[in-house]
C-alpha cells in the first residue's frame, strides 16, 4: 500500500469517528440539565419568552428530530446557528481555530527546541551530574500547574522585562510569534519533560547499538554520526510521545487560553458549555475529534519519513 492510499484510508476513517463524536456529544449535552433560553434571558425568563426562544431554535422538537436536522445540516457543511450569538456556528468556530493551532504548533516547536538539546546533554553523559540535572529539573515543569507557570512567566517577562505582551494573540505572523511566545512556552514547559525522558532513553539505546560503534570505528565524524544515525533513530519514540500529548493538548488548551486571553477554540468550548450553546459545542467537539485523528495521522506519516523501514501495509 502506498503512502497516498494509506492517507486516503485514514481520512475515510474520519467519517465514522466524526459520526461517533456527534452522537455522543449531541445526546450528552442535551442530557445534562440547563437551558440556553434561561441563560440568555437571565432573571427576565418567563415561560412565554422561553417558549418563544425554544420555538425559534427548534428546541421544542423531539431530540432525535433535532439530531437528524443537525446531521442534515452537517452534510451540507452547516453547523447551525449559535444560540448565544445568533450567528452561524461555522465561521465562529473556524475564526477561533487559528489561535489554538498556533498555540499547539508553537508549543510543539518550543518543546522540541527545549527537549532535543537537553536530551542530548543527558544522553551523552549518562549518570553524570548534568544527566541527573536534566532528568530532575524539567520535572518541575511537569509538577507545577500551567496556570501558575503562566502567571510567573507573565510577571517576569511581560511585567518586569516587558519583552512580551501580557496576553493576547497579536496581529500578523510576527505579531503572533511575539504574542504567543509565553503561552506556547508555558505549554512547552509542561510538555518537554515527557519528551526529554523519551528522547533520552531512546538515545541511550541507540548510542549503545552496534552500528553506532561500527560507524565510530569507521571514522564517521561525530556531528554526522549524531544527526544521521543517533538522533534520527532515537526520535521515533519521542514523536509518538509528542503526538499523543498533542492529542491531549488539543482538548486541554483552555487553561492556557484563559490565562493568556488567547481567543482560541478551547475557551469557546467552555463558554459554550456554560451557555448550553448546543450547536457550537457540537461543532467544536467535531473539530477536536478531527484534529486528534489528523495529529495521529501526521505522527504515523512522520515515522515513515524518519525511518524508511516503516511500511504502510503493516
Amino acid at each position, binding site marked *: 500500500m502506498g503512502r497516498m492510499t494509506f492517507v486516503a484510508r485514514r481520512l475515510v476513517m474520519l467519517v465514522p469517528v466524526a459520526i461517533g463524536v456527534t452522537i455522543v456529544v449531541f445526546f450528552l449535552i442535551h442530557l*445534562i*440539565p440547563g437551558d440556553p433560553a*434561561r*441563560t*440568555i434571558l*437571565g*432573571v*427576565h*425568563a*418567563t415561560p*412565554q*419568552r422561553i417558549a*418563544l*426562544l425554544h420555538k*425559534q431554535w427548534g428546541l421544542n422538537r423531539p431530540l432525535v428530530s433535532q439530531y437528524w436536522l443537525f446531521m442534515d445540516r452537517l452534510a451540507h457543511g452547516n453547523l447551525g446557528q449559535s444560540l448565544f*450569538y*445568533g*450567528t452561524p456556528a461555522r465561521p465562529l468556530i473556524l*475564526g*477561533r481555530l487559528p489561535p489554538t493551532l498556533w498555540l499547539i504548533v508553537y508549543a510543539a*516547536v*518550543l518543546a522540541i*527546541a527545549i527537549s*532535543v*538539546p537537553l536530551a*542530548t546533554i543527558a544522553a*551523552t553523559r549518562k549518570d553524570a551530574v548534568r544527566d541527573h540535572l536534566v532528568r530532575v529539573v524539567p520535572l518541575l515543569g511537569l509538577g507545577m500547574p500551567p496556570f501558575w507557570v503562566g*502567571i510567573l512567566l*507573565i*510577571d517576569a517577562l*511581560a*511585567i518586569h*522585562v*516587558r*519583552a*512580551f*505582551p*501580557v*496576553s*493576547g*494573540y497579536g496581529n500578523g505572523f510576527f*505579531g503572533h*510569534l*511575539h504574542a504567543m*511566545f509565553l503561552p506556547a512556552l508555558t505549554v512547552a514547559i509542561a510538555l518537554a519533560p515527557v519528551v526529554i525522558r523519551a528522547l533520552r532513553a531512546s538515545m541511550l539505546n541507540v548510542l549503545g547499538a552496534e552500528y553506532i560503534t561500527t560507524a565510530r570505528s569507521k571514522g564517521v*565524524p*561525530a556531528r554526522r*554520526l*549524531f*544527526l544521521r544515525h543517533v538522533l534520527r533513530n532515537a526520535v521515533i519514540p519521542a514523536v509518538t510521545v509528542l503526538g499523543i500529548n498533542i492529542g491531549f493538548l488539543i482538548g486541554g488548551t483552555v487553561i492556557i487560553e484563559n*490565562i*493568556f*486571553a488567547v*481567543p482560541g477554540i478551547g*475557551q*469557546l468550548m467552555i*463558554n459554550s458549555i*456554560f*451557555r*448550553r450553546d448546543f450547536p457550537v459545542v457540537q461543532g467544536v467537539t467535531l473539530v477536536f475529534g478531527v484534529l486528534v485523528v489528523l495529529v495521529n495521522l501526521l505522527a504515523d506519516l512522520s515515522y515513515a519519513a524518519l525511518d524508511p523501514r516503516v511500511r504502510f501495509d503493516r
Partner: protein
Amino acid sequence: MAHRFTMRKALVSAGVLIVLAGCSSGGKSGGTTGATSGPVHGGNLVIARTADSQSMNATTVFDNESIWIFEQIYQTLYTVTNNGKGVKPWLATGYKVSSDSKTYTFTLRPGVKFSNGKLMTSADVKFSIDQTRKAAKGWGYIDTAIKSVDAPTPSTVVIHLKYPWAPLLADLSLFANGIVPNNYGGKTETQFYNHPMGTGPFKWDYWHKGSALKLVRNPYYWQKGKPYLNSVTWTYVASDNTRELQLKGGQTQIDEFPAWSTVSNLKSTPGVNMHLFNSTRTDYLLFNEKRKPFQDVHVRRAISLAINRGALVKAVLFGNGRPANSFMPPQVPYYQKATKGLQYNLAAAKAEMAKSSVPHGFSTTLLIPSGTSDATTVATIMQSELRPLGIKVNIKQLDPNTAFLDAQNQKYDMTLSYWTMDIPDPDELVTFAVDPNSGAKSFFTSYNNPTVVQDAHLAEQTLSTSKRQGLYNYIQAHAAADAFMAFLYYSPYAYATTSKVHGFFVTPLGNYHMENVWLSK
C-alpha cells in the same frame, strides 16, 4: 568533544528561537504621566472585561456586557442622572403632559445626527419605540403602558398611554428604547444589528466574537468636542489575574471588576486608580415558600436574624460593601433608609425559631452555583451561622446554568441571587420581587402578601412623589418583616484604571458615558 559541539549547536538553535520571538516586536513601554490641565483628544482606550457581549439588538438582549457597549451607539430620549435616582433630557429637550396624564408630547433635540450624517427625526423615534414594544421575547414588557406613538412633526413625538404611568420617563431612559434609524436605514433587522448605527458618541468598527469589540469616534456626535477618544476596544479576558496583569503591563487601561481580594492591593499600586462606584447590586438569600418549612414566617425571620451581614461583607467583599436593610438598594428612588430590616441578632433569631413550626431545627439545602468563590464563602458562613438554631445546612453546588435553572423552577430550599437596576425607578424590581403573578413568581420565592402586591401596582399609577414614597415605604417595611428573602449586602462596582484615564464614571445602574473619557499623554 564532538558531542559538545552538537550540544552547543542545539542550545544555540533553541536560544535563537527564543530571541527571535522576543525581538519580533517590541513590548509596550511602561510608566505613567500626570494629567494635563484639561481633556485631551485622541487615543485608543482598551477595557478588559469579564465576559463577551451577546448581541447588539437592544430590544431583546439582557446581558450587561452587551448593554454597556450599545449604550455608546444608541441613545435614548432621557438618560439616567449620575446618582441613578432620576433622569435628564438627552435626545429630547423636554416634554408636556396632558391634564389626564395619559399623553406626553416630547420635543426632540435639534441637530442630532446618526453616525452616517443623517438627521434624526420623530419618525426614527416612533419606529424605535414601536420595535421595542413588539419585542415579545425581549424588553416589550417595559413599554406595556404605551398605547401608541405618533410623530406629528419631525421634531415632535407624542406618546399615548393606556393609563397614567409614573415610571414612563425612567422606562424611556432604558437602553431598549434607544433610537435607531427608521426602518433600520433600509436594512433588515439582522443586517442592522450586525453593523448597528445610532446617534451615540461612537460608531461600529468590528466585533471578533469571543475576543474583542471596537467602536470608533462618531464625527457627527451632537455634543460639540466629544467624544475625546478615537476609539474604545472591549476585550474579553476571563481571568481576573490576567486582566490585572494587563492593566499593570499597560496592555489595557480599564480592568472591569477586579477580584475583591485584590482591591486593597490595587489601591496602593502606583499608576493605578481603584474606583468603587455606588451600584444598585443587592445580594439576597431566597427562601422557597413552596417547600416546608419556609412557608413559616418565623423560620424565615429566624434565618434572616441569624445572618451576620457584617461578617459576609468582610469575608466576601473584603469590606468593600455594606449590609442590606431593604430589598431595594440605596441608589434607587424611594429607598427607605429607616427600614431596618432584620439585622443580626442571635437571641431574637432563637426566639423566632422557638415560635416556629420547627422549634428544634431542621435539615435543609442551600443551592449555589459551582466555581464561584463568593457563593461558596457565603454558603459556608451561613452553614456555620445557622447551626445555633438547629438548622443543618447542606450545600448543593451545581454548574451555574443548572443552578440558575433550578432556582427559576423553584427546585430549591434556599438559594443565593442578586439584582441590579435597569431603570431609575423601583417599579421593575418591586413587581419582579413581590408579585407572585409576575413571570418571576416573586423572585422565584412564591412570596404572596396581597397588600404589598396591591400597593406595588398602585405605586405604578401614582404620580405624586410623596404618595409613591408612602407606598414604597410600606412595601419595604412589610417585605422586611415578612422576610421573604434575607437581604444580604450592597456592593459597589469595582473598576481599576490606569492613572492616564480621566472622566470615567459608572452610574449606580452600571452605565458609563465613554464620551466623557479621555487619556492623558
